């Protein structure tokens, strides 16, 4: 390489080449030393964002074939062993249902009344005139607070002594006028037609709510407490079945817009790991369900 260059040099020393060389050289020299580190940084930062992947719009799902799945009785035997010595009124069975769904699609959200209720000490507030027919219905169905102005006043003073709030459709205007959205909204207590808490017939709604529980999909998973720790396998089976039926119904109602499928059902409890259910009540090696009926 050295010889051709030395040969070419005398020929190619034209005005153009010389000028281009002379303009290039000082530039390189000027920036070389101080810019050394900054150039390194710049190149690395430039190459990284070029590799950016397309964001996925569904939740990642794993193949369940490799995981161990349990029959209900087996899972309950393990869970009861994990919950040994705990206070049975504070520990609960939980069900987690994983869906195959879009990340940004509509979510499943509803409430239902399980055949064997998990929590019974719910305080319900009904916004309707206390002396009206709806108000009386609500009281007889088990609402703890019934009224209009009195309740608005209490809430505005910051006294919120209820866990659910229902509004009769005739009282909705008054409620909106009272401007309680800023107080009740953050707690999720503000009645609205979207959540199904503005109703015409108060009685049945309250009755459903007393033993009922709400569920909603968050990040592709629906979680709900489905039983007390002292439930027998048969009771748990009924509860789980009715919950799954309600869920399937909700999903089918959404079906015209999106597709949601149930991917995995996991039973766990407050102090136990999650057991993936295989949909069976009893496996071939399971113990007799009668053994699990006793107190914990």
């Amino acid at each position, binding site marked *: 390489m050295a010889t051709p260059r030395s040969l070419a040099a005398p020929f190619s020393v034209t005005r153009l080449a010389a000028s281009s060389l002379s303009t290039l050289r000082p530039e390189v020299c000027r920036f070389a030393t101080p810019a050394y*580190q900054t150039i390194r940084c710049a190149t690395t930062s430039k190459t990284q964002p070029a590799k950016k992947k397309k964001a996925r719009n569904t939740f990642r799902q*794993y193949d369940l074939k*490799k*995981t*161990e799945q349990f029959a209900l009785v087996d899972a309950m*035997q*393990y869970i*009861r*062993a*994990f919950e*040994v*010595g*705990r*206070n*049975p*009124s504070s520990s609960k069975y939980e069900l*987690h249902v*994983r869906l195959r769904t879009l990340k940004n699609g509509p979510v499943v959200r509803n409430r239902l009344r399980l055949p*064997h209720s998990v929590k019974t000490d719910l305080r319900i507030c009904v916004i309707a005139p206390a002396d009206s027919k709806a108000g009386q219905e609500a009281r007889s169905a088990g609402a703890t607070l019934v009224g209009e102005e009195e309740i608005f006043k209490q809430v505005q003073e910051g006294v919120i002594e209820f866990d659910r709030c229902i509004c009769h459709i005739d009282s909705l205007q008054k409620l909106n006028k009272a401007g309680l959205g800023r107080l009740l909204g953050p707690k999720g207590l503000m009645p609205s037609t979207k959540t199904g808490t503005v109703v015409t017939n108060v009685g049945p709604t309250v009755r459903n709510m007393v033993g009922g529980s709400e569920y909603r999909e968050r990040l592709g*998973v629906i*979680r709900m407490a489905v039983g*007390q*720790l*002292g*439930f*027998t396998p*048969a*009771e748990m089976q009924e509860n789980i079945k009715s919950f799954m039926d309600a869920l399937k119904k909700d999903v089918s109602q959404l079906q015209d817009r999106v597709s949601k499928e149930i991917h*995995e059902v*996991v039973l766990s409890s407050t102090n136990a*790991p*999650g*057991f*993936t259910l295989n949909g069976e009540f009893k496996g071939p090696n399971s*113990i*007799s369900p*009668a*053994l*699990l*009926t*006793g*107190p*914990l």
Partner: protein
Amino acid sequence: MVNIIARARKLQELLWIRCGPGALVLPKEVSKISMEFNTKIYGGHRGARKFWREMLPRIKYRNPSVPIEISRHTSPDGPALLHIYTKTTPNTPDGSSNTSVPSLHTQSGTADTPPSSTPNARNTLVPDATKPTYSINIRDQQHSEILDALLAKLPESEVVRPTPEEEQQMVDMAEFKERSEADRVLVREKLMKERREAELLRLARGETAAAA
């Protein structure tokens, strides 16, 4: 929901609840076990708590129909006791004491079983008046010593030996644990090195910035 890999790992480790010290089938006349100890470990209550956390799940797994109850008090000088209740009438053939009762969460305990920790009713039920057959003082004892004492009181109980496959699994699990511990050290070293280098670089860059 917990990541499926983490969950699967937990389920693989379920072996610990099936085998190991404490995996025993109690004799049929045992109707209930209850423990009583402090909420804190001071004053010799550590063994009791460890027994509860490690051995009782195994006992409960093998004896699902025996109620086990724990009451914890707040004074370090209080008692640390393990009560064993027995009843003279033998159980029904399948080992269950209350097959005739469909559900216990709606009603209190039957006559032959002492009322135990039924849901919502632990503190509201009439306290159990029957005297425990055996009471073992478990203060200042290791959890293995407590198990030995329990076995001494109930010599008929049958210890469940792990099958060869389970033994193999246990060995594998132990190996895996050991390896993961070694790996953890390696990864930690690497991570610390990276962090140190990053820190040095940051310092160097800060100095150049200060100089310029």
